[in-house]
């Protein structure tokens, strides 16, 4: 994998994140939870109130579900960054360019404290770990991002790309190839 295309994927994802018209996770700021940590997967404990904060599409057709849960996973809108994390990611990228890796890590740490459930930030942190030659952690960050991007193909693709790069950096070429396939497959969906 060429570093150029690697950078391209990361930049593309972040650019998409920045340009997205959708407001960052549509939580009103007056709710009891901080707006920064919008709901992700539905955990429903009361049977009649089957709702999802995760998907813009209705999960269940009709008021009363005949089948409790749809087998088809809903597609999720690609993750986006809040303005605060976007500013911190930009700052981290500047710091990385200057070779200030601890500084970049600090900025991403700050963003992660604001939006710990945002997979894009974990991918960004993984990219930084690549720069730091900490490939095992780069892969872990990629896997963490995957777990937070269920149904979000674009973000999953970027995470697999990171995992592929980290595997390749350690000479695990067959696995890297597999990861790359997944990245491509998800990227075209």
């Amino acid at each position, binding site marked *: 994998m060429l570093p150029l295309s690697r950078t391209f994927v990361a930049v593309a994802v972040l650019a998409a994140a920045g340009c997205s018209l959708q407001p960052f996770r549509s939580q009103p700021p007056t709710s009891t939870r901080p707006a920064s940590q919008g709901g992700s997967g539905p955990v429903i404990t009361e049977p009649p109130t089957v709702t999802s904060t995760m998907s813009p599409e209705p999960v269940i057709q009709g008021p009363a579900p005949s089948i409790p849960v749809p087998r088809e996973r809903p597609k999720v809108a690609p993750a986006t960054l809040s303005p605060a994390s976007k500013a911190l990611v930009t700052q981290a990228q500047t710091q990385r360019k200057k070779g200030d890796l601890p*500084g970049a*890590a600090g900025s991403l740490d700050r963003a992660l404290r604001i939006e710990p459930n945002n997979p894009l930030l974990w991918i960004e942190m993984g990219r930084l770990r690549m720069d730091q030659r900490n490939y095992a952690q780069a892969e872990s960050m990629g896997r963490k991002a995957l777990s937070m991007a*269920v149904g979000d193909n674009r973000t999953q693709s970027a995470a697999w790309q990171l995992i592929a790069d980290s595997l390749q950096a350690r000479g695990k070429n067959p696995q890297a190839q597999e990861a790359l396939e997944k990245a491509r497959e998800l990227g075209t969906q």
Partner: protein
Amino acid sequence: MARRKRKPKSRQKLQRGFAIIALLALVAAIVLVAVLDRRVTQQFEGRRWTLPARVYAQPLELYAGQNLSSARFAQELERLGYIARTPVDRPGTFRRKGDSVDVYVREFRFSDETQPAQKLHVGFDGEAIAALAGAGGADVPVFRLDPLLIGSIFPIHGEDRIIVSPAEVPPLLPEALKAVEDRKFESHHGVNPLAILRALFVNVRAGQVEQGGSTLTQQLVKSYFLDSRRTLRRKGEEAIMAFILESRFEKADIMNAYINEIYLGQDGRRAVHGFGLASQFYFGKPLAELNLPEVALMVAIVRGPSYYDPRRHAERALERRNLVLKVLAEQGVVKPEEAERAMKAPLGITDNAGRSANYFPAFLDLVRRRLREDYQEQALTETGLTVFSTLDPLLQEKAEIALSDELARQDKSGRKAAQGLEGAMVVTTPQTGEVVAMVGGRRASFDGFNRALDMKRPIGSLAKPMVYLAALQSGRYTPASVVMDEPIEYKLESGDVWKPNNYDKKVHGPVTLVRGLTQSYNLATVNLGLDVGLGPVAKTYVQLGLDEAPPKYASILLGTAQLNPVEVAQMYNTLANGGFRSPLRAVRAVIDEQGKALKAPELEVTEAAPAEAVYTLNRMLIEVFERGTARPAKKALPPGLVVAGKTGTSNDYRDSWFAGFSGGHVIVVWMGHDDNATTGLTGTTGALQAWTRLMASISTTSFDPLMPEAVEDRWIEFYSGQETSPYCSGSAVRMPFEVGTVLNPNPACPPSTTVEEAALMQPLLQDAPNEEGVTVPADAAPQTSNRP
């Protein structure tokens, strides 16, 4: 000649003797001066002070959408020593007007950059920040306030100080010091004999020490060598050294050294030196921001930090402060009107009787231990490091309150065993693995036995999730699997037979996994654990972040493994983090005196357990609050807040535990007696109460993990494990299963049952098994509650 001859030899000898003695004395004097010169000059010039590492809390991050009201923001600013005043024209001031706050933020050196002092406008929209703007009105996406100083790492019985440069000293302070302590400072040569005589005269007349005759230089020398013996020899040496200092150094340097050196108070084992730290210690803000009455109080304290301790002897301190103000007016340092006005001001010291505010010994203890893994003791206590920690001061305060309120309630409960309990609390953030609060005992500000770190206790039923995780990981069990809750006799290696019991001494027969865990049945858990195997169960402890697996005794299934609250927090943090293990961090960054970043632990994540198994376990732990042992707490939590957790009670009610999490916080609580006596409390009636107090009082999010791709939700019957419809009975529960899992359908009410069909069946379904004993009243004694 004759005269010369007459001169007796003895006299000649005597003269020579005198000469030799005089010479020796001179040599001795020169040597003494040289020795003293070396000592005092080295002290003054060399590494003048050993600088303990300074530890800061995490800074408050401000950004649009942040859950923070203008009132709470103002409180946070006050905690940082910011003063509410108009106009907002210098660092350390702010103004709150309705839903907007203008603040002049102080300069601060963070680990990555120095943030200059600047004005910031913060607009609020009720409970959240709406927008931030800089001085020119430009939009600011994210901004961090200067963090709270929470302590220093100093040697035992050590000196602590914050060095200030002349630019950080309010000009009034040296003037006031001169006026009160040493009027001839600018002209004397280190000693002021007239002052000594005057002091002697005044003191003899008054019959007590009212005036000291020591110059500032002499006081400085005296402080350098920490010898309070009042012998003439010491006095002489002091005078010589003061003279040496004066001849070698500028007055301004001596004044600056004095300001940073002098002893100004005692904070437990730490000696507060220098006006920089004293300003934080007494007023909670930087020296540069002190006003006239505050400067006067500091000058008053110089004379006797314990005699004029403004916390213990407020009246005495006030009287002396006003005397200082009077002298300042007499000497023309300040205008008489200013002095008059200042005399009416209160002392203005931060409360927290006898302790500096923001003193968190248990957390500092953790920071110190974590730093010792990477740094030499000497580097920590002497080289002026700055440590950026993970502590969240607001959360810490709430944790202390939650624990002490609950302990106070137990004290008043009338149950003897629950009186005088001790407790400990640890709070972490799941995704980033940071320890944000820690309480080490009933008296949170007491630097003593740290129960969060140094106390290992059997974890009781907190161990059950590990058994169920091992079962789920084996691939042979689902939440609907049925295990037998029936008596078991297990033959131990010693030849004895182990016969565990349920807490309610009842046997429940076949129970589903979800029921066995949520209602904390011992027999079901032991049977399950033995079937899964002790090896795999012990292994989960390491997966979740323990350094060592517990010994493979069958009793670990019921929680005989002894852990401290931080270890428990580490394990539950891995659960809350979806099976990703992040070693808990207390330190974010360390910089040296020049601002260079040094070694600090980085954020790490490791996929430690399969996401599907952890997700399924967590969903069962949510049910603990819906139909298990934590149900009594549900009503005290904010409506709609989803949390997960587990109660723990050790044998004979010696330890009451609760470990659980929301989306944003993992909280572990332990309550018990130091001498291991019974508390009479279960996890539900003790630790869960404190846990709930804290969880309900903080800003947090629901525990809301994304479902892994390989699992799907299905409705099962809580008691039988049969697949059913949500409309059939109140005991239908939604649980995750691996896609394609075969479940037995409930013959009376299969999954396809619609709401209308279910309505027709209602009379039949009224007879659904009733949950026994799960409605434990929050205040119930353990005798009436059935389970841990």
